[in-house]
Structures are given as C-alpha cells and as structure tokens.
C-alpha cells in the first residue's frame, strides 16, 4: 500500500509562536489515520498546514508524489483534498443545497452521488432548501462532511467531527464515517474522542508539543491502557 500523504520535518510558525516543531508522518492510501493528542498539541495546526491555510516555514509535504508545501489552498483542494474544519464552517446564510453546489467544483452535484450522501445523511435531503444556519450542530457537521465528499477526493482531512455533539449523534456519525471509509477513502482524522478513534482508525499518530510522539496501529494503542494514559492522559474506560 503506497503512502498518499507524506510530511517531512514540517515546522509552522503562527505569528511569533512556533507551533509545529518538526512533524514527520505518512498517511497510507485507503486507510484512516487518526491524529490524537491533548489540546494544543498541534493537531489542528497540522491539518491547516497540510491544507495550506498556514504556510509551513520548513519541511516538505507531498501528496501522491506532488510537493504541496508552497501550494495555495485552492490548488491543494483541487489536487483532491477535502477539508472538514473543526468549526464546521458551513455557510450559514446559504441553503444546504447552495453549500453543496459550491463544494461541487466540476458542475452541478451528481444525482447518484447525492443519493449516496443522502443515504448517510437523510437530514440533508429533508432540509435541502433550508438555510444551513438553522441546522442543528450534528446536521451542520453532516453538511460539512457532505461538502467534503460531494465529489470523489483523494484525501479527506477531518478535524474533530464529534466535538460538541450529543453521544447518540456521535454514534451515528461514527457509522457514517465507517461507511465513507468502506468506500475506499483515505482519511486523516483528528479526534479527541478515543472511542471514536478506536472505532475508525487503522493507524494512529499521537502529537505533543508540535511533534509526533507516537505512531503505530490503532488497535495496539486501544489495547494498551498504560500507553494511552502515558500519551493522552486518559484510559479507554473513561470514554466508555
């Protein structure tokens, strides 16, 4: 299995802060790679740097062999990267339909693709012509993910999709992401919810202070409570 995304020695400065301090990892094609870590470890900054929203001050990022660390955000998106930010960032003044029309760059959204998405997220069909600002938090998250998958993408960068959602909705969201994963998507997923991470992840990266401090199989980390406590300051039971 080839590596779709490679980060080598990535440093990112935001203002006078040195956020990422030499990040190295790979994301294998067709797998879901979890990016875990405490608040402020640099997870969101890593996704933003990959997406070009913050410029890496040093290091290399390759997407399917193409160097992108100096590429503008829109061009990175057009190379096939879908981004679901932590804030969801749905356009609240636009309808659900308009949000998806914008996300479909190659023309009007494909009907079959829309049906596939509605299969995951029936609420989006129901509220097709409603303003996105009126959706619930869970529905906004659905819309944000739907926007990222409205056309086939090589890589999905998803930042804390379960944050702030009710437990019942989190379970449903996990099922949706599993379905997307079964479709062969390559996903780099930032998550604080260890239960969700265990359910979805093939491999795991743990960040602390702007560097990767652990990499391995998700199943191995899920089985090693002592390691979880050491790396993340939590135990699996705490999230069950």
């Amino acid at each position, binding site marked *: 299995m080839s590596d779709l995304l490679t980060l080598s020695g990535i440093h990112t400065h935001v203002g006078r802060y040195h956020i990422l301090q030499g990040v190295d990892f790979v994301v294998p094609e067709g797998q879901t790679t979890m990016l875990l870590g405490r608040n402020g470890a640099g997870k969101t900054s890593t996704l933003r740097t990959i997406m070009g929203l913050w410029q890496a001050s040093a290091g290399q990022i390759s997407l399917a062999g193409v160097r992108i660390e100096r590429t503008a955000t829109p061009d990175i998106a057009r190379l096939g990267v879908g981004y679901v930010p932590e804030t969801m960032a749905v356009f609240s003044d636009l309808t659900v339909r308009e949000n998806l029309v914008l996300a479909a760059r190659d023309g009007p959204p494909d009907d079959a693709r829309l049906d596939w998405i509605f299969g995951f997220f*029936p609420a989006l069909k129901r509220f097709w012509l409603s303003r996105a600002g*009126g959706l619930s938090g869970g529905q906004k998250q659905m819309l944000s993910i739907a926007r990222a998958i409205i056309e086939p993408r090589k890589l999905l960068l998803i930042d804390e999709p379960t944050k702030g959602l009710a437990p019942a909705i989190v379970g449903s969201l996990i099922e949706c992401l599993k379905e997307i994963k079964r479709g062969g998507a390559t996903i780099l997923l930032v998550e604080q919810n260890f239960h969700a991470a265990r359910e979805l992840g093939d491999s795991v990266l743990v960040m602390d202070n702007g560097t990767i401090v652990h990499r391995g199989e998700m199943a191995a980390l899920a089985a090693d409570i002592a390691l979880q406590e050491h790396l993340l300051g939590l135990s699996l039971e705490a999230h069950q």
Partner: protein
Amino acid sequence: MNELAATDSLPKPKRDIIPALLPVALALLVLPLIGSASSWATLTVASLAMGMMIFIMASGLTLVFGLMDVLNFGHGAFIAVGAYVATLVLVPLAGWMQADSLLSNLAAVLPAILLAMAVTGALGLVVERVLILPVYGQHLKQILMTTGGLIVAEQTLYALWGPQIIPLPLPASLRGSFIIGDVAIAKYRLLAMLVGLIVFVAIQLVLNRTKLGLLIRAGVENGEMVEALGYHIRRLFLGVFMTGSALAGLGGVMWALYREQVHASMGDDLTVLVFIVVIIGGLGSIGGCFIGALLVAMVANYGGFLVPKLALVSNILLMVAILMWRPRGLHAVTSR
C-alpha cells in the same frame, strides 16, 4: 443514523422585515410633521432618487468591505473619476445633450456612462493590485494607502481639468417634471430611481441565482473556507473590487448629472455618506445597503426641510441610533 435523520422540522428562518419597514415608517411618520402632502411627496421622491444614487455608489463598497475586509477610504475617487471621465464625452457632445430628441440625448449619455464605468473598473484593477494587495489584513495601512490614493486622485483631477467646477447640464429630455395633481416629480429623479432599482435587482440576481454570487456570499461569511473548497478568493476579490469601482463610476456620473456639475472634491463629500450607508446596512449586505441608502437620503431630505440646523448631523445621528439598536448594522452578514 436515525438521530441524524432528525425528523423534527427546522425552525423556519426568521424573515427580518423590520429594516425594510423602516423607510416606510419614516415616510409615514414625517407626513403629519411636514403638513403639505405635495411637499411630502416631492421630498419623498427626492429622497428615493438620492437614496438610489447613493446605493449605486455604496453597493460596491459594502461588498469590498464585507468580502475582502478592506477599508477603502479611496472609494470616493472612483465616484469623482467616473464623473470627470463622463465629461470627456458629454462636453463635446453638448449639442446632442441639448437636442430635444431623446435618442440624441441617449447617444451622448450612454457612451459616457459606459466609458466612465470602463475607466473606473480598470482603475479599480490598478488600485487593487498596487495599493490594496500589499496591505490585505492590515487595516491601518489600508486606511493610509487608500486615503493617500484618494488625495492623489483628487489632485490629479485638479491638474488635468483645473480647479474650476465643470457645469454638466441635464439632457433636454430629462429636464422638467411630471405634474401629478399638486405634486411635481422631476424626470431625472424618476430615472435615478429606475437605474438604482435595476442595479439592485441585478446584484440580487447575481448574488442569489448564480454560482459566482454564491461564492461572493460565502466569501463574505468565511473566505478561508471558500479557498479550502478550491476557489481562489483573491481573484474573486479582484472581480468584486473592479465591479464596485465601476458602480461607483456609474454613481458618479448620475450624481454629477443630478447636481449638474462636476468638481474634484465630489468624491470626498460623498465618501462620508457612502460609509455611513455601508455601516448602517451591515458590512457586506446589499439589502442592508439599499435600505441604509434610502434612510440616509430620507433623513437628509426630511431633516433638511423640518429642522435645517440639524441637517449637517442628521446622518450621524441616524447611524448612532441604528448602531445602538443593531451594533452590526441592519442586516448583519459578517461577524465584523
């Protein structure tokens, strides 16, 4: 997945009609104060015409403000340049302007408007690339650069055309009034209202019925996410800036014909009004800008009639009152 199906229906988005009712309420409120129905009607038509012209000038600025977060204090330069460029056509074709034929009048006015819009649009391209691009995200520098640009533009107009006021008589077919009962409605004011409405409807159609419009609306709300979806927002910025500049040029021509004169500082005078309108309306909101322009014009006209001493500060008072009620303007689109 059942929870995500969320069968409970969405709360209907509230249609905020209060701002739209304000101009109507204001017009009705002053009717008994003015006393004479014919004076009221004349003042109201004058307000609507003035408001439409201010809207044309301000519409571009509100999008520039909302979409690009750029404080363009030089917007008035496009207004003045538009008016001066129009004189390049209208002064030599004065004979056509004064002919009693509508066709002859239009043959002079339409090319003047098109040339003014083309020149101010192209000037917008230069200003965005040279003055704005280096200072995106830096408000203080934007103020300095654009204010400096306005001064340079104004002085250039003085240098090229001289300090004197250039008279610009209305075309013959647009002079005079329609008399309905006791009410005289100036023809040019009706035309200004019509053009303003056309611009308003056209902008609304573009914003609501086209993908370009969706991008602009989305960009006003969250430009970063628009980029993350694969669209170069800077190119969008440039297009909006040029369009806004061209609309300011159109507004400049219409204002010059309304006042029947052109002078280099006309952009200065109008910049304050235009900024008040944009702030009252809510940054980035075309609907808010439209209502704000009407309110500003109504307050200026009614205020000037009822309490002339308050006329100079009436728009500031209006802005303070609206911002105390709605701190982000009548129609808040951005979080700024």
